[in-house]
Protein backbone atom coordinates (compact mmCIF):
# COMPACT_ATOMS: atom_id res chain seq x y z
CA UNK A 1 0.00 0.00 0.00
CA UNK A 2 1.36 3.43 -0.90
CA UNK A 3 1.69 5.77 2.10
CA UNK A 4 -0.52 8.84 1.96
CA UNK A 5 -0.84 12.21 3.66
CA UNK A 6 1.49 12.83 6.60
CA UNK A 7 2.87 9.30 6.33
CA UNK A 8 3.96 10.01 2.76
CA UNK A 9 5.50 13.35 3.72
CA UNK A 10 7.50 11.73 6.53
CA UNK A 11 8.46 8.63 4.54
CA UNK A 12 11.63 10.36 3.32
CA UNK A 13 12.80 10.62 6.92
CA UNK A 14 12.38 6.92 7.71
CA UNK A 15 15.13 4.38 7.29
CA UNK A 16 14.96 0.71 6.40
CA UNK A 17 17.05 -1.31 8.82
CA UNK A 18 17.65 -5.02 9.13
CA UNK A 19 16.39 -6.83 12.21
CA UNK A 20 19.15 -9.42 12.49
CA UNK A 21 22.30 -10.92 10.90
CA UNK A 22 24.81 -8.06 10.79
CA UNK A 23 28.39 -7.84 9.53
CA UNK A 24 30.17 -5.55 11.99
CA UNK A 25 33.05 -3.17 11.19
CA UNK A 26 34.91 -1.23 13.88
CA UNK A 27 35.98 2.39 14.17
CA UNK A 28 39.66 3.38 14.56
CA UNK A 29 38.76 6.08 17.08
CA UNK A 30 36.01 4.25 18.96
CA UNK A 31 38.12 1.13 19.54
CA UNK A 32 41.18 3.20 20.50
CA UNK A 33 39.45 5.61 22.87
CA UNK A 34 36.23 3.81 23.87
CA UNK A 35 36.85 0.06 23.50
CA UNK A 36 34.24 -0.62 26.20
CA UNK A 37 31.59 0.99 23.98
CA UNK A 38 32.27 -1.30 21.03
CA UNK A 39 32.30 -4.36 23.26
CA UNK A 40 29.06 -3.35 24.96
CA UNK A 41 27.37 -2.95 21.57
CA UNK A 42 28.29 -6.57 20.77
CA UNK A 43 27.22 -7.73 24.23
CA UNK A 44 23.90 -5.90 23.87
CA UNK A 45 23.20 -7.31 20.44
CA UNK A 46 24.35 -10.88 21.00
CA UNK A 47 23.58 -11.58 24.66
CA UNK A 48 20.77 -9.20 25.59
CA UNK A 49 18.84 -8.91 22.30
CA UNK A 50 19.87 -12.30 20.92
CA UNK A 51 21.04 -11.09 17.49
CA UNK A 52 23.64 -12.51 15.13
CA UNK A 53 26.53 -10.02 14.70
CA UNK A 54 29.62 -11.29 12.91
CA UNK A 55 33.10 -9.72 13.04
CA UNK A 56 35.92 -10.77 10.74
CA UNK A 57 39.35 -9.94 12.29
CA UNK A 58 40.76 -9.31 8.79
CA UNK A 59 38.79 -6.10 8.31
CA UNK A 60 40.94 -2.96 8.49
CA UNK A 61 40.57 0.79 8.74
CA UNK A 62 38.33 2.16 5.99
CA UNK A 63 41.09 4.84 5.60
CA UNK A 64 38.43 7.54 6.17
CA UNK A 65 40.56 9.83 8.35
CA UNK A 66 43.24 9.70 5.64
CA UNK A 67 40.65 10.36 2.93
CA UNK A 68 39.17 13.38 4.73
CA UNK A 69 42.65 14.74 5.42
CA UNK A 70 43.32 14.33 1.69
CA UNK A 71 46.21 11.86 1.64
CA UNK A 72 44.02 8.96 0.43
CA UNK A 73 42.55 8.97 -3.08
CA UNK A 74 38.89 8.20 -3.92
CA UNK A 75 39.84 5.06 -5.89
CA UNK A 76 41.80 3.76 -2.90
CA UNK A 77 39.09 4.20 -0.28
CA UNK A 78 36.45 2.79 -2.62
CA UNK A 79 38.52 -0.37 -3.03
CA UNK A 80 39.26 -0.68 0.71
CA UNK A 81 35.54 -0.46 1.44
CA UNK A 82 34.81 -2.89 -1.41
CA UNK A 83 37.17 -5.34 0.34
CA UNK A 84 34.97 -5.12 3.44
CA UNK A 85 31.95 -5.87 1.26
CA UNK A 86 33.87 -8.87 -0.09
CA UNK A 87 34.60 -10.16 3.44
CA UNK A 88 30.88 -9.75 4.18
CA UNK A 89 29.86 -11.67 1.05
CA UNK A 90 32.31 -14.48 1.86
CA UNK A 91 30.79 -14.80 5.36
CA UNK A 92 27.25 -14.91 3.93
CA UNK A 93 25.99 -11.60 5.38
CA UNK A 94 24.06 -8.82 3.60
CA UNK A 95 23.59 -6.16 6.30
CA UNK A 96 26.58 -4.04 7.26
CA UNK A 97 26.67 -2.20 10.60
CA UNK A 98 29.39 0.41 11.04
CA UNK A 99 30.77 1.70 14.36
CA UNK A 100 32.01 5.08 13.05
CA UNK A 101 30.17 8.11 11.66
CA UNK A 102 33.05 9.06 9.34
CA UNK A 103 33.08 5.52 7.94
CA UNK A 104 29.28 5.42 7.74
CA UNK A 105 29.30 8.69 5.77
CA UNK A 106 31.88 7.21 3.40
CA UNK A 107 30.04 3.93 2.87
CA UNK A 108 26.91 5.91 1.96
CA UNK A 109 28.90 8.34 -0.22
CA UNK A 110 30.58 5.53 -2.10
CA UNK A 111 27.37 3.54 -2.66
CA UNK A 112 25.74 6.75 -3.93
CA UNK A 113 28.75 7.45 -6.19
CA UNK A 114 28.53 3.97 -7.70
CA UNK A 115 24.86 4.62 -8.54
CA UNK A 116 25.69 7.86 -10.37
CA UNK A 117 28.97 6.64 -11.89
CA UNK A 118 28.60 2.92 -12.71
CA UNK A 119 32.03 3.09 -14.37
CA UNK A 120 33.58 3.74 -10.93
CA UNK A 121 31.90 0.61 -9.58
CA UNK A 122 33.36 -1.43 -12.43
CA UNK A 123 36.82 0.09 -11.90
CA UNK A 124 36.59 -0.73 -8.18
CA UNK A 125 35.69 -4.36 -8.99
CA UNK A 126 38.78 -4.58 -11.21
CA UNK A 127 41.08 -2.96 -8.63
CA UNK A 128 39.87 -5.26 -5.85
CA UNK A 129 40.25 -8.35 -8.02
CA UNK A 130 43.75 -7.31 -9.08
CA UNK A 131 44.85 -6.51 -5.51
CA UNK A 132 43.19 -9.36 -3.60
CA UNK A 133 41.39 -11.78 -5.95
CA UNK A 134 38.15 -11.00 -4.09
CA UNK A 135 34.67 -10.16 -5.39
CA UNK A 136 31.89 -8.28 -3.66
CA UNK A 137 28.15 -7.59 -3.63
CA UNK A 138 26.43 -4.33 -2.74
CA UNK A 139 24.97 -4.68 0.78
CA UNK A 140 21.20 -4.88 1.19
CA UNK A 141 21.22 -2.52 4.19
CA UNK A 142 23.77 -0.10 5.65
CA UNK A 143 23.40 1.07 9.25
CA UNK A 144 25.42 2.99 11.77
CA UNK A 145 25.58 1.13 15.09
CA UNK A 146 23.46 3.89 16.69
CA UNK A 147 20.72 3.23 14.11
CA UNK A 148 20.45 -0.29 15.47
CA UNK A 149 20.43 0.84 19.11
CA UNK A 150 17.68 3.33 18.12
CA UNK A 151 15.74 0.55 16.43
CA UNK A 152 15.82 -1.50 19.64
CA UNK A 153 15.33 1.47 22.02
CA UNK A 154 11.93 0.22 23.23
CA UNK A 155 13.04 -3.36 24.01
CA UNK A 156 15.97 -1.76 25.87
CA UNK A 157 13.53 0.50 27.78
CA UNK A 158 11.51 -2.58 28.76
CA UNK A 159 14.62 -4.11 30.34
CA UNK A 160 15.82 -0.82 31.91
CA UNK A 161 17.13 -0.75 35.47
CA UNK A 162 17.82 3.01 35.37
CA UNK A 163 15.71 5.85 33.99
CA UNK A 164 17.13 9.20 32.79
CA UNK A 165 15.55 10.99 35.71
CA UNK A 166 17.10 13.00 38.56
CA UNK A 167 16.75 10.64 41.50
CA UNK A 168 16.41 13.57 43.92
CA UNK A 169 13.91 15.80 42.13
CA UNK A 170 12.16 13.15 40.04
CA UNK A 171 12.51 15.38 36.95
CA UNK A 172 13.82 14.13 33.59
CA UNK A 173 17.50 14.88 33.01
CA UNK A 174 18.36 17.51 30.39
CA UNK A 175 20.35 15.87 27.64
CA UNK A 176 22.19 17.48 24.73
CA UNK A 177 22.47 15.20 21.72
CA UNK A 178 25.25 15.65 19.17
CA UNK A 179 24.71 13.80 15.90
CA UNK A 180 28.05 14.38 14.11
CA UNK A 181 28.21 16.04 10.70
CA UNK A 182 28.85 13.00 8.50
CA UNK A 183 25.87 11.03 9.82
CA UNK A 184 23.21 12.80 7.74
CA UNK A 185 24.43 16.19 6.50
CA UNK A 186 25.90 14.65 3.33
CA UNK A 187 23.27 12.06 2.52
CA UNK A 188 20.19 12.90 4.62
CA UNK A 189 18.24 9.85 3.45
CA UNK A 190 20.81 7.57 5.10
CA UNK A 191 20.11 8.90 8.59
CA UNK A 192 17.05 8.46 10.79
CA UNK A 193 15.12 11.74 10.50
CA UNK A 194 17.51 13.07 7.84
CA UNK A 195 19.52 16.26 8.32
CA UNK A 196 16.53 18.32 9.46
CA UNK A 197 14.93 16.08 12.10
CA UNK A 198 17.59 13.64 13.27
CA UNK A 199 15.94 11.23 15.68
CA UNK A 200 18.68 8.70 16.19
CA UNK A 201 19.80 10.00 19.59
CA UNK A 202 16.76 12.02 20.68
CA UNK A 203 14.65 8.88 20.17
CA UNK A 204 16.86 6.97 22.62
CA UNK A 205 16.85 9.80 25.18
CA UNK A 206 13.06 10.10 25.16
CA UNK A 207 12.50 6.32 25.22
CA UNK A 208 14.74 6.06 28.28
CA UNK A 209 13.07 8.90 30.21
CA UNK A 210 15.20 12.00 29.49
CA UNK A 211 14.43 15.45 28.13
CA UNK A 212 16.15 16.54 24.89
CA UNK A 213 17.69 20.03 25.04
CA UNK A 214 17.41 22.33 22.03
CA UNK A 215 19.99 25.13 21.81
CA UNK A 216 21.21 27.52 19.09
CA UNK A 217 24.36 25.68 17.99
CA UNK A 218 22.82 22.21 18.24
CA UNK A 219 23.86 21.23 14.70
CA UNK A 220 27.28 22.94 14.69
CA UNK A 221 30.32 20.73 14.07
CA UNK A 222 32.19 19.45 17.16
CA UNK A 223 35.33 21.02 15.67
CA UNK A 224 37.27 17.94 14.55
CA UNK A 225 37.89 19.24 11.04
CA UNK A 226 40.28 16.32 10.26
CA UNK A 227 43.54 18.16 9.30
CA UNK A 228 42.44 21.00 11.62
CA UNK A 229 42.99 18.65 14.55
CA UNK A 230 45.58 16.22 13.19
CA UNK A 231 48.18 18.98 12.76
CA UNK A 232 49.09 20.76 15.98
CA UNK A 233 49.36 24.19 14.34
CA UNK A 234 45.69 24.04 13.31
CA UNK A 235 44.07 23.02 16.59
CA UNK A 236 42.81 26.55 17.26
CA UNK A 237 40.09 25.80 14.68
CA UNK A 238 39.08 22.65 16.49
CA UNK A 239 38.96 24.05 20.03
CA UNK A 240 37.26 27.29 18.87
CA UNK A 241 34.37 25.39 17.31
CA UNK A 242 33.98 23.25 20.44
CA UNK A 243 33.99 26.39 22.58
CA UNK A 244 31.23 27.84 20.39
CA UNK A 245 29.04 24.79 20.98
CA UNK A 246 29.59 24.58 24.73
CA UNK A 247 29.01 28.32 25.26
CA UNK A 248 25.75 27.95 23.39
CA UNK A 249 24.52 24.91 25.38
CA UNK A 250 25.70 26.12 28.82
CA UNK A 251 22.61 28.26 29.68
CA UNK A 252 20.40 25.19 29.16
CA UNK A 253 22.23 23.36 31.98
CA UNK A 254 22.65 19.97 30.31
CA UNK A 255 23.23 17.05 32.69
CA UNK A 256 25.26 15.27 30.02
CA UNK A 257 25.95 15.17 26.28
CA UNK A 258 25.12 12.09 24.22
CA UNK A 259 27.17 11.62 21.06
CA UNK A 260 26.80 9.61 17.88
CA UNK A 261 30.32 9.83 16.47
CA UNK A 262 33.41 8.52 18.27
CA UNK A 263 35.49 11.54 17.20
CA UNK A 264 32.92 14.03 18.50
CA UNK A 265 32.79 12.10 21.78
CA UNK A 266 36.55 12.32 22.22
CA UNK A 267 36.79 16.00 21.27
CA UNK A 268 33.90 17.18 23.41
CA UNK A 269 35.50 15.39 26.37
CA UNK A 270 39.12 16.43 25.80
CA UNK A 271 38.54 20.01 24.67
CA UNK A 272 36.58 20.70 27.88
CA UNK A 273 39.77 19.75 29.74
CA UNK A 274 41.88 21.95 27.44
CA UNK A 275 39.58 24.98 27.74
CA UNK A 276 39.53 24.58 31.51
CA UNK A 277 43.34 24.46 31.56
CA UNK A 278 43.74 27.40 29.18
CA UNK A 279 40.93 29.69 30.29
CA UNK A 280 39.66 28.32 33.59
CA UNK A 281 36.19 27.90 32.05
CA UNK A 282 33.81 25.01 32.83
CA UNK A 283 30.45 24.48 31.16
CA UNK A 284 28.55 22.49 33.79
CA UNK A 285 26.99 23.61 37.03
CA UNK A 286 28.97 24.32 40.22
CA UNK A 287 32.26 24.58 38.35
CA UNK A 288 31.93 21.06 37.00
CA UNK A 289 32.36 19.95 33.39
CA UNK A 290 29.69 18.15 31.37
CA UNK A 291 30.08 14.36 31.06
CA UNK A 292 30.15 13.14 27.44
CA UNK A 293 28.70 9.69 26.79
CA UNK A 294 28.54 7.39 23.81
CA UNK A 295 25.13 5.81 23.10
CA UNK A 296 26.57 2.41 24.01
CA UNK A 297 27.70 3.74 27.39
CA UNK A 298 24.26 5.24 27.97
CA UNK A 299 22.46 2.05 26.94
CA UNK A 300 24.76 0.14 29.31
CA UNK A 301 23.96 2.44 32.24
CA UNK A 302 20.23 2.21 31.49
CA UNK A 303 20.50 -1.59 31.50
CA UNK A 304 22.27 -1.56 34.86
CA UNK A 305 25.83 -2.35 33.74
CA UNK A 306 28.77 -1.53 36.01
CA UNK A 307 30.01 1.90 34.74
CA UNK A 308 33.62 0.80 35.22
CA UNK A 309 33.11 -2.17 32.87
CA UNK A 310 31.84 0.29 30.24
CA UNK A 311 34.98 2.43 30.57
CA UNK A 312 33.46 5.66 31.90
CA UNK A 313 36.52 6.16 34.12
CA UNK A 314 38.70 6.55 31.01
CA UNK A 315 37.18 9.88 29.92
CA UNK A 316 38.81 13.14 31.05
CA UNK A 317 35.47 14.33 32.45
CA UNK A 318 34.56 11.81 35.14
CA UNK A 319 30.97 10.56 35.48
CA UNK A 320 30.36 10.47 39.27
CA UNK A 321 28.12 13.59 39.47
CA UNK A 322 25.92 12.08 36.72
CA UNK A 323 25.89 8.61 38.30
CA UNK A 324 24.74 10.13 41.60
CA UNK A 325 21.96 12.07 39.84
CA UNK A 326 20.82 8.85 38.18
CA UNK A 327 20.82 7.12 41.58
CA UNK A 328 23.26 4.49 40.32
CA UNK A 329 24.89 2.54 43.15
CA UNK A 330 28.52 2.37 41.98
CA UNK A 331 31.57 1.05 43.80
CA UNK A 332 34.37 3.68 43.93
CA UNK A 333 36.88 1.01 44.97
CA UNK A 334 36.23 -0.96 41.77
CA UNK A 335 36.95 2.00 39.48
CA UNK A 336 40.63 1.42 38.73
CA UNK A 337 40.87 -2.33 39.06
CA UNK A 338 41.93 -4.91 36.50
CA UNK A 339 39.56 -7.52 35.11
CA UNK A 340 40.73 -9.97 37.78
CA UNK A 341 40.34 -7.42 40.60
CA UNK A 342 43.92 -6.23 41.10
CA UNK A 343 44.23 -2.58 42.22
CA UNK A 344 45.75 -0.32 39.53
CA UNK A 345 47.40 3.07 40.16
CA UNK A 346 44.85 5.89 40.52
CA UNK A 347 45.25 8.66 37.92
CA UNK A 348 45.43 12.25 39.14
CA UNK A 349 44.02 15.56 37.91
CA UNK A 350 40.93 14.22 36.18
CA UNK A 351 37.88 16.50 35.89
CA UNK A 352 34.77 16.11 38.13
CA UNK A 353 36.72 13.49 40.13
Amino acid at each position, binding site marked *: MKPEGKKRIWSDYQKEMADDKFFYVRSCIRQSFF*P*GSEQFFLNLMRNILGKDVYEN*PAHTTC*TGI*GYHSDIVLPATIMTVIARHFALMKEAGYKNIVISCVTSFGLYTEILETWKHFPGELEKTRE*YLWKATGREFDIPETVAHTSDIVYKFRDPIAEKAKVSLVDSNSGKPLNVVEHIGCHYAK*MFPKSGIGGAEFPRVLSGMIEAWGGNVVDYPERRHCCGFGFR*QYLVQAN*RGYSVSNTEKKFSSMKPYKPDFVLTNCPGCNMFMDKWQYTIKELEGISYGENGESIPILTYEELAGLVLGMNPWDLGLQYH*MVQPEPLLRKLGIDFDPADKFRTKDGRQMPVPENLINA
Partner: protein
Amino acid sequence: MENLYELLEQDIRFEEGLNACMNCGVCTAICPAAEFYNYDPRKVVDMVQGKDNSEIESLLKSDTIWYCGECMSCKTRCPRGNTPGFVIMALRTLSQRLGYFTESEKGRQQFAIKRTVGDNIFKYGYCAATYAVNPSMHPEQGPIWEYILENSDDVFERLGGQINGIGTGPLRKIPEEALEELRKIFDVTGGTDFFKSIEENSKRKAAEQGIQFSPSGTDNDYFVEVYTANSNNHTGNQE
Protein backbone atom coordinates in the same frame (compact mmCIF):
# COMPACT_ATOMS: atom_id res chain seq x y z
CA MET B 1 50.79 24.78 -19.10
CA GLU B 2 48.04 22.23 -18.53
CA ASN B 3 44.45 23.40 -18.31
CA LEU B 4 43.84 23.15 -14.58
CA TYR B 5 40.05 23.33 -14.86
CA GLU B 6 40.09 20.32 -17.17
CA LEU B 7 42.27 18.44 -14.67
CA LEU B 8 39.75 19.24 -11.92
CA GLU B 9 36.93 17.93 -14.13
CA GLN B 10 38.59 14.50 -14.10
CA ASP B 11 37.80 14.21 -10.37
CA ILE B 12 34.29 12.78 -9.79
CA ARG B 13 33.97 14.85 -6.62
CA PHE B 14 34.40 17.98 -8.72
CA GLU B 15 31.82 16.76 -11.22
CA GLU B 16 29.36 16.10 -8.36
CA GLY B 17 30.34 19.15 -6.33
CA LEU B 18 30.11 22.00 -8.83
CA ASN B 19 27.10 22.44 -11.06
CA ALA B 20 26.31 26.14 -11.24
CA CYS B 21 27.07 28.34 -8.26
CA MET B 22 24.95 31.51 -8.05
CA ASN B 23 27.18 33.04 -5.38
CA CYS B 24 24.50 33.26 -2.70
CA GLY B 25 26.98 32.59 0.13
CA VAL B 26 24.85 30.15 2.14
CA CYS B 27 27.88 27.80 2.26
CA THR B 28 29.95 30.56 3.88
CA ALA B 29 27.17 31.32 6.35
CA ILE B 30 27.10 27.71 7.61
CA CYS B 31 30.86 27.05 7.38
CA PRO B 32 32.77 26.42 10.66
CA ALA B 33 36.06 27.27 8.92
CA ALA B 34 34.75 30.63 7.67
CA GLU B 35 33.90 31.48 11.26
CA PHE B 36 37.52 31.44 12.41
CA TYR B 37 39.79 31.52 9.34
CA ASN B 38 40.15 34.05 6.51
CA TYR B 39 38.07 31.70 4.46
CA ASP B 40 35.06 32.09 2.21
CA PRO B 41 33.98 28.97 0.30
CA ARG B 42 31.69 31.09 -1.89
CA LYS B 43 34.74 32.96 -3.22
CA VAL B 44 36.69 29.73 -3.77
CA VAL B 45 33.87 28.20 -5.81
CA ASP B 46 33.43 31.41 -7.77
CA MET B 47 37.14 31.60 -8.59
CA VAL B 48 37.09 28.00 -9.79
CA GLN B 49 34.00 28.37 -11.95
CA GLY B 50 35.66 31.40 -13.60
CA LYS B 51 38.01 28.79 -15.22
CA ASP B 52 40.94 31.23 -15.25
CA ASN B 53 44.09 29.11 -15.24
CA SER B 54 46.28 31.54 -13.31
CA GLU B 55 43.57 32.12 -10.69
CA ILE B 56 43.19 28.37 -10.17
CA GLU B 57 46.97 27.97 -10.00
CA SER B 58 47.15 30.63 -7.29
CA LEU B 59 44.45 28.79 -5.33
CA LEU B 60 46.34 25.49 -5.63
CA LYS B 61 49.46 27.17 -4.19
CA SER B 62 47.60 29.05 -1.44
CA ASP B 63 46.76 28.46 2.22
CA THR B 64 43.09 29.07 1.32
CA ILE B 65 42.22 25.58 0.10
CA TRP B 66 43.56 24.02 3.32
CA TYR B 67 41.26 25.85 5.76
CA CYS B 68 38.15 23.67 5.21
CA GLY B 69 37.44 21.01 7.90
CA GLU B 70 35.45 18.76 5.52
CA CYS B 71 32.45 18.70 7.86
CA MET B 72 30.39 18.94 4.64
CA SER B 73 27.73 21.12 6.27
CA CYS B 74 27.74 23.06 2.97
CA LYS B 75 26.34 20.06 1.12
CA THR B 76 23.11 20.08 3.12
CA ARG B 77 22.43 23.77 2.62
CA CYS B 78 23.40 24.69 -0.97
CA PRO B 79 20.18 25.61 -2.81
CA ARG B 80 21.77 24.59 -6.12
CA GLY B 81 22.96 21.16 -4.98
CA ASN B 82 26.65 22.06 -5.09
CA THR B 83 29.14 20.81 -2.54
CA PRO B 84 31.95 23.34 -1.98
CA GLY B 85 33.61 20.74 0.30
CA PHE B 86 33.93 18.36 -2.68
CA VAL B 87 35.41 21.18 -4.79
CA ILE B 88 37.98 21.74 -2.03
CA MET B 89 38.81 18.02 -1.94
CA ALA B 90 39.41 18.00 -5.70
CA LEU B 91 41.59 21.13 -5.41
CA ARG B 92 43.64 19.57 -2.59
CA THR B 93 44.22 16.34 -4.52
CA LEU B 94 45.31 18.27 -7.62
CA SER B 95 47.56 20.55 -5.55
CA GLN B 96 49.35 17.46 -4.24
CA ARG B 97 49.51 15.75 -7.65
CA LEU B 98 51.21 18.83 -9.13
CA GLY B 99 53.49 19.39 -6.12
CA TYR B 100 51.97 22.85 -5.51
CA PHE B 101 51.01 22.04 -1.90
CA THR B 102 54.53 22.79 -0.68
CA GLU B 103 54.12 26.44 -1.70
CA SER B 104 51.93 27.27 1.32
CA GLU B 105 52.34 26.82 5.06
CA LYS B 106 49.02 24.95 5.41
CA GLY B 107 49.66 22.86 2.30
CA ARG B 108 53.08 21.69 3.56
CA GLN B 109 51.27 20.11 6.52
CA GLN B 110 50.21 17.23 4.22
CA PHE B 111 53.65 15.80 4.91
CA ALA B 112 52.88 15.61 8.65
CA ILE B 113 49.57 13.88 7.95
CA LYS B 114 51.26 11.37 5.63
CA ARG B 115 53.95 10.62 8.24
CA THR B 116 51.32 10.04 10.97
CA VAL B 117 47.97 8.83 9.60
CA GLY B 118 49.45 7.53 6.31
CA ASP B 119 52.21 5.55 8.03
CA ASN B 120 49.71 4.20 10.62
CA ILE B 121 47.58 2.75 7.80
CA PHE B 122 50.52 0.82 6.33
CA LYS B 123 52.09 -0.20 9.67
CA TYR B 124 49.03 -1.11 11.72
CA GLY B 125 46.01 -1.20 9.38
CA TYR B 126 44.42 1.61 11.43
CA CYS B 127 44.32 5.37 10.75
CA ALA B 128 44.59 5.95 14.48
CA ALA B 129 45.44 3.54 17.29
CA THR B 130 45.90 4.03 21.03
CA TYR B 131 49.65 3.29 20.91
CA ALA B 132 50.14 5.73 18.00
CA VAL B 133 48.68 8.78 19.81
CA ASN B 134 51.80 10.25 21.44
CA PRO B 135 50.98 12.44 24.48
CA SER B 136 53.79 14.88 23.67
CA MET B 137 52.14 15.56 20.29
CA HIS B 138 48.67 15.54 21.89
CA PRO B 139 48.76 17.48 25.18
CA GLU B 140 45.00 18.11 24.84
CA GLN B 141 44.39 14.43 25.62
CA GLY B 142 45.18 15.24 29.24
CA PRO B 143 46.47 13.09 32.12
CA ILE B 144 44.00 10.26 31.47
CA TRP B 145 45.70 9.57 28.15
CA GLU B 146 49.15 9.11 29.67
CA TYR B 147 47.53 6.84 32.25
CA ILE B 148 45.82 4.73 29.59
CA LEU B 149 49.08 4.37 27.66
CA GLU B 150 51.00 3.38 30.80
CA ASN B 151 48.33 0.80 31.74
CA SER B 152 47.00 -0.07 28.32
CA ASP B 153 47.02 -3.88 28.67
CA ASP B 154 45.02 -3.78 31.92
CA VAL B 155 42.67 -1.05 30.65
CA PHE B 156 41.92 -2.91 27.43
CA GLU B 157 41.59 -6.29 29.12
CA ARG B 158 38.92 -5.02 31.51
CA LEU B 159 36.98 -3.37 28.65
CA GLY B 160 37.11 -6.42 26.40
CA GLY B 161 39.79 -5.15 24.04
CA GLN B 162 43.02 -6.82 23.10
CA ILE B 163 45.88 -4.66 21.94
CA ASN B 164 47.79 -6.58 19.27
CA GLY B 165 45.99 -9.82 20.16
CA ILE B 166 45.05 -12.41 17.55
CA GLY B 167 41.36 -12.74 16.67
CA THR B 168 38.49 -10.29 16.97
CA GLY B 169 38.16 -7.33 19.34
CA PRO B 170 39.15 -3.68 19.78
CA LEU B 171 42.71 -2.92 18.59
CA ARG B 172 43.38 -6.55 17.68
CA LYS B 173 46.44 -7.09 15.53
CA ILE B 174 45.41 -6.82 11.90
CA PRO B 175 46.66 -10.07 10.33
CA GLU B 176 49.73 -9.68 8.10
CA GLU B 177 47.83 -11.06 5.06
CA ALA B 178 45.18 -8.37 5.52
CA LEU B 179 47.85 -5.66 5.80
CA GLU B 180 49.41 -7.00 2.61
CA GLU B 181 46.03 -6.79 0.82
CA LEU B 182 45.62 -3.21 2.07
CA ARG B 183 49.06 -2.25 0.72
CA LYS B 184 48.28 -3.91 -2.63
CA ILE B 185 45.05 -1.90 -2.84
CA PHE B 186 47.12 1.26 -2.37
CA ASP B 187 49.52 0.04 -5.10
CA VAL B 188 46.89 -0.73 -7.76
CA THR B 189 44.77 2.39 -7.11
CA GLY B 190 47.65 4.89 -7.21
CA GLY B 191 47.57 5.46 -3.44
CA THR B 192 51.19 4.36 -2.91
CA ASP B 193 52.46 6.65 -5.69
CA PHE B 194 50.43 9.49 -4.16
CA PHE B 195 52.23 8.95 -0.82
CA LYS B 196 55.56 8.89 -2.69
CA SER B 197 54.72 12.16 -4.38
CA ILE B 198 53.95 13.83 -1.01
CA GLU B 199 57.30 12.51 0.28
CA GLU B 200 59.36 13.58 -2.75
CA ASN B 201 57.89 17.07 -2.98
CA SER B 202 58.36 17.56 0.77
CA LYS B 203 61.97 16.41 0.55
CA ARG B 204 62.58 18.88 -2.28
CA LYS B 205 60.98 21.69 -0.25
CA ALA B 206 63.00 20.83 2.88
CA ALA B 207 66.22 21.04 0.82
CA GLU B 208 65.08 24.36 -0.66
CA GLN B 209 64.40 25.73 2.83
CA GLY B 210 67.59 24.22 4.27
CA ILE B 211 65.68 22.20 6.88
CA GLN B 212 66.87 18.75 8.01
CA PHE B 213 64.74 15.92 6.56
CA SER B 214 64.83 12.16 7.15
CA PRO B 215 63.28 9.43 5.01
CA SER B 216 60.99 8.11 7.75
CA GLY B 217 59.38 8.94 11.08
CA THR B 218 58.55 12.15 12.88
CA ASP B 219 61.94 12.78 14.48
CA ASN B 220 63.23 15.32 11.96
CA ASP B 221 63.24 19.11 11.76
CA TYR B 222 61.03 19.32 8.65
CA PHE B 223 58.27 17.29 10.32
CA VAL B 224 58.41 19.48 13.44
CA GLU B 225 58.40 22.60 11.27
CA VAL B 226 55.31 21.69 9.21
CA TYR B 227 53.50 20.19 12.24
CA THR B 228 53.88 23.32 14.37
CA ALA B 229 54.55 26.34 12.13
CA ASN B 230 51.89 29.02 12.37
CA SER B 231 52.41 32.45 10.83
CA ASN B 232 49.30 33.64 12.69
CA ASN B 233 48.10 35.25 9.45
CA HIS B 234 45.16 32.89 9.03
CA THR B 235 42.46 34.49 11.13
CA GLY B 236 40.83 37.92 11.41
CA ASN B 237 39.94 40.12 8.50
CA GLN B 238 43.18 40.29 6.53
CA GLU B 239 42.65 39.96 2.79
